[in-house]
């Protein structure tokens, strides 16, 4: 159960990182500079709004990935330190 919990707190940041990368990599291409020749203003605004939305979500997701990832790493380090401390006191 404890191992499952540890696996989960390590997996969540990795998934978040992947998700942030996916959001950016699968975003639609930027409208070209001469977009007025190819599309209407409404179409252009829709693409820009989608891009803004995806990049904002990616920024929030990557923030959580970094913070949770670091907290998970610290938690695992703390747990292993506690376990090695217990092992040491049993040896003594």
């Amino acid at each position: 159960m404890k191992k499952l919990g540890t696996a989960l707190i390590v997996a969540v940041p990795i998934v978040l990182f992947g998700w942030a990368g996916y959001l950016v990599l699968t975003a639609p291409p930027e409208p070209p500079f001469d977009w007025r020749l190819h599309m209407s203003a409404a179409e252009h605004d829709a693409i820009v709004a989608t891009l803004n939305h995806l990049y904002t979500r990616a920024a929030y997701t990557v923030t959580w990935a970094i913070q949770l990832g670091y907290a998970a790493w610290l938690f695992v380090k703390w747990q292993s330190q506690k376990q090695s401390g217990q092992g040491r006191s049993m040896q003594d």
Partner: protein
Amino acid sequence: MKKLAIGVYLFITVALLGWAYNQAIYVAPNDAAQGEMFRIIYYHVPSASVAFLFFAVSLVGSIGYLASRHNHAERAQMFDAWALAGAEVGVVFCTVVLITGPLWGRRAWGMWWTWDARLTTTLVLWLIYVSYLLLRRFAAGPQMQTLAAVLGIFGALDVPIVYMSNRWWRTQHPAPVFGGGQDSGMDPTMVGALLWNMLAWFLWGVLILALLYRVERKQQKIAAEEAEHALNF
């Protein structure tokens, strides 16, 4: 009692992070010029502020270590642990700044990165503290903590340069939102969202700083015990 206090603190921090997220995404209005993308500010700016604060903790710890290393060995170790914890948590927040910034820049300026003063000094700050952490990780010997303390102090000198960079030099990075002159400032709802996020991420930072400090102090005690054991053996 201590566990209860930690639990309450954790609960308040998580609740505040949720509240601050709600303020940033659902309550604050879209920016007139940048639209939804401007909401990156609610994570980008608080992360920078909190990083600066923890680098200041590292500075105080480093100075304290250098001042007390000859006369108060135990106090010096405590200062050293604070210096390390401050630097490491500061690097985590600075990493967030250096990733959310380019995501914002890509949409606002059409490029991921530019070598302007604010961005470059922030990258240099991050590199100094990463080298501090690498020094702590890989160097050995009695001088390691002293060298790290000196590097920590030099690293902190970059913090005011980063802060003032877009006041001193013409930069691609926007002018300061607060205290930046006549045209600076934000809508009160936006200010509220920004301050909530600053508070929430600060509390989160303090939580991981305290845990890291505890881990580092334990590590110091284990190392001291091992050294004593080796001497006796």
